[in-house]
């Protein structure tokens, strides 16, 4: 068979195209292309229905497969991360972690930097800069942010109506509401305040424009007794002393019951909480509503996060390029974000495509569980209150489990009347500083925060 010159040209063009294409082609929808061999990534994550996004990702990047395992939520997964890191093997390629625990895993050597494939300029196309506080350290990017923990306040409309309470816009109004409800019915807690969940109080300090610790220029800064922190803790200590608020042990059966039967009039928690409540307290359908947090200064609304998680590339990953592209696409592509919102039930996400696209488009969506309330605008506003005050965001200490357990221990002493709130802050800080030293951190600055 004799080939025409045209067909020879076509065949050779196709040949060169097939050989060279991977090196030159851009990835799907402007995302970076994958240049490595076909791989199967492994991932640990505890969100539900992550598979819908994975399916779409595998279509966008056909040579990367992702095998997802749920090895337990939060602490259950963290013990496995610590163990597998120490053992030198056993970590998956991609790890889900709350933003507050990520610095610990960075320091522990569980994550690896992905700047080579996702440089900061690429990252910032898809995520707001503030999120780098939770996904990067010293210029190294370790992962991407998924959901937002921007705090909201859920409140029992039935309780508020019955006792003639108005939803507080400021903390001063909140204190009045708490006292009024406590007087009317001491059996109902004005708020279920966590006795064993440190992210709660940390988020409240953040919301007031403060922080207890941060990381900058290679140093850990610790200052628990700064004026803003003291103001927030003193406020809550007064509510406790007045008898209106009794901190609860969260996450146990008594607490679930309290959320279901109207034993608490409000709960302040992260942006993911409304969905969590819906799943864990179905009996209370129709009774709860969502609001933004009361403010210290209503003219300058601010907010903080409580929880929220990112996806990070593990130090033991043999395929960091594929893993980096996966975490970038998973948490930012609009198709994935839609699945994460609808199927994985994450109310608000940190991706630009959510903040500027999907989020606002959901403004009219009614939630039957919340009595038909359109909750997305509330959650989005809460998130924007965080995003607009990036100076308040901080990197958590690399010993958060200890920060948490020591807070619980010291808070118990305060509640048992053994120490006042100033002693609580001082003793808590001393315990954390001592623990950091015990863990071998010699780059700790005590008594001040970064400028």
């Amino acid at each position: 068979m004799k080939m025409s010159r045209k067909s020879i040209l076509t065949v050779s063009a196709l040949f060169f195209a097939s050989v060279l294409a991977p090196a030159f082609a851009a990835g799907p929808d402007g995302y970076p292309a994958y240049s490595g061999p076909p791989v199967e990534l492994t991932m640990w994550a505890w969100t539900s229905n992550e598979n819908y996004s994975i399916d779409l990702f595998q279509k966008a990047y056909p040579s990367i497969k992702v095998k997802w395992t749920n090895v337990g939520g939060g602490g259950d997964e963290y013990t496995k991360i610590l163990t597998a890191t120490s053992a030198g093997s056993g970590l998956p390629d991609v790890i889900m972690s709350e933003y507050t625990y990520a610095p610990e895993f960075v320091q522990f050597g569980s994550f690896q930097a992905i700047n080579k494939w996702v440089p900061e300029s690429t990252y910032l196309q898809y995520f707001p800069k503030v999120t780098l506080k939770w996904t990067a350290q010293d210029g190294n990017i370790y992962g991407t942010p998924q959901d937002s923990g921007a705090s909201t306040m859920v409140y029992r409309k039935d309780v508020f109506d019955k006792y003639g309470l108005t939803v507080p816009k400021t903390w001063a109004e909140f204190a009045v509401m708490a006292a009024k409800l406590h007087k009317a019915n001491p059996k109902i807690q004005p708020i279920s305040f966590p006795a064993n969940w440190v992210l709660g109080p940390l988020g409240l300090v953040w919301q007031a424009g403060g922080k207890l610790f941060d990381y900058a220029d290679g140093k850990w800064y610790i200052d628990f007794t700064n004026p803003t922190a003291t103001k927030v803790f003193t406020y809550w200590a007064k509510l406790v002393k007045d008898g209106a608020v009794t901190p609860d042990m969260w996450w146990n059966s008594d607490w679930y019951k309290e959320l279901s039967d109207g034993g608490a009039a409000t709960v302040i928690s992260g942006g993911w909480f409304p969905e969590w409540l819906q799943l864990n307290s179905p009996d209370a359908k129709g009774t709860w509503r969502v609001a933004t947090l009361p403010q210290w200064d209503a003219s300058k609304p601010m907010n903080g996060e409580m929880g929220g998680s990112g996806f990070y590339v593990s130090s033991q990953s043999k395929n960091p390029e594929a893993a980096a592209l996966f975490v970038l696409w998973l948490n930012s592509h609009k198709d994935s974000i839609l699945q994460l919102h609808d199927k994985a039930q994450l109310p608000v996400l940190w991706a630009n495509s959510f903040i500027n696209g999907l989020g606002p488009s959901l403004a009219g969506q009614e939630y039957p569980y919340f009595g038909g309330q359109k909750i997305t605008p509330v959650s989005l506003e809460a998130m924007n209150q965080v995003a607009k005050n990036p100076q308040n965001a901080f990197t958590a200490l690399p010993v958060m489990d200890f920060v948490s357990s020591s807070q619980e221990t010291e808070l118990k002493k305060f509640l048992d009347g053994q120490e006042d709130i100033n002693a609580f802050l001082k003793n808590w800080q001393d315990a954390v500083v001592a623990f950091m030293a015990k863990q071998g951190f010699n780059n700790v600055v005590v008594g001040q925060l970064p400028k």
Partner: protein
Amino acid sequence: MKKKNSLRAYLFLAPFLVFFVLATAYPLVYGIILSFFGQRGAKMWFVGANNYAAVVADPQFWSGFGIPAFLLFVQIPLMLLLGIFIALLFERIKRSAFYRLIFYLPYALPGVIAGILWSYMFSKSMSPFVPLLKAMGVAQPDFITNPNLPWILLVIILWEWTGYTALVLYSTLVSIPPEYAEAAQIDGATRFQIALHIKVPMLKNTLFLLLIFNSIGALQVFNEPRMLGGLITLPPNFTPAMYIYNEAFSYGAFTFAIAMGLVLAAVIFVISFLFMKGSVKELDVHA
């Protein structure tokens, strides 16, 4: 001939020896080696005996022994007394198999499930005792408070282990030849006297064994307090085993935790040894 016999013995022992080496001896030796290293993540460096020095000097570690001591001096004697009493009842009742099964059941329940069960028992809002206490005029029963904690542990552990203890004692009782009791009866001894002066002394060996095993259990107590940790704030060093667990799995200080584990093992060894030494004269050793 002798050599051939011992070879055969080792052959029969092989399944056990393989597991012993893999699951006990190797981890122990490896653990001892690791305990001489400092560690953060996958990084390790030799520190000599520093971990041991830190354990011995760590007041947090030693203050965790309060709960085991309470169990040792209060819960175990109480359980052994109850066990003897129930075992004697088993022996007296005809067709006691049903009761033996009932008393044994808590022991057969996995610790985690028992933990969930008891967390409901002591729940503020859902405990079955709440309506009862309310009827008795207690407005807001709060079981789980710091001063109550040792007693709550005592209740749970008694519930878990007394039936088992009674069953072990009962199996010893039934192996006592009936002639002793019959002879005593002919001599005019009452049932109580027979129980106290004939039967109980013959339980001595079994009681001693139970004492050793339960003391080891008390020093290692972990499951029950860990379950209670969801209901009330417990310090990370509430018991030595909890402290070891937290140092390893919450804070990632594995080699320090191993050193603590080995020190705890040494403490257990010493206590067991003292018990043995103190009791060996009292025992009938059929060697």
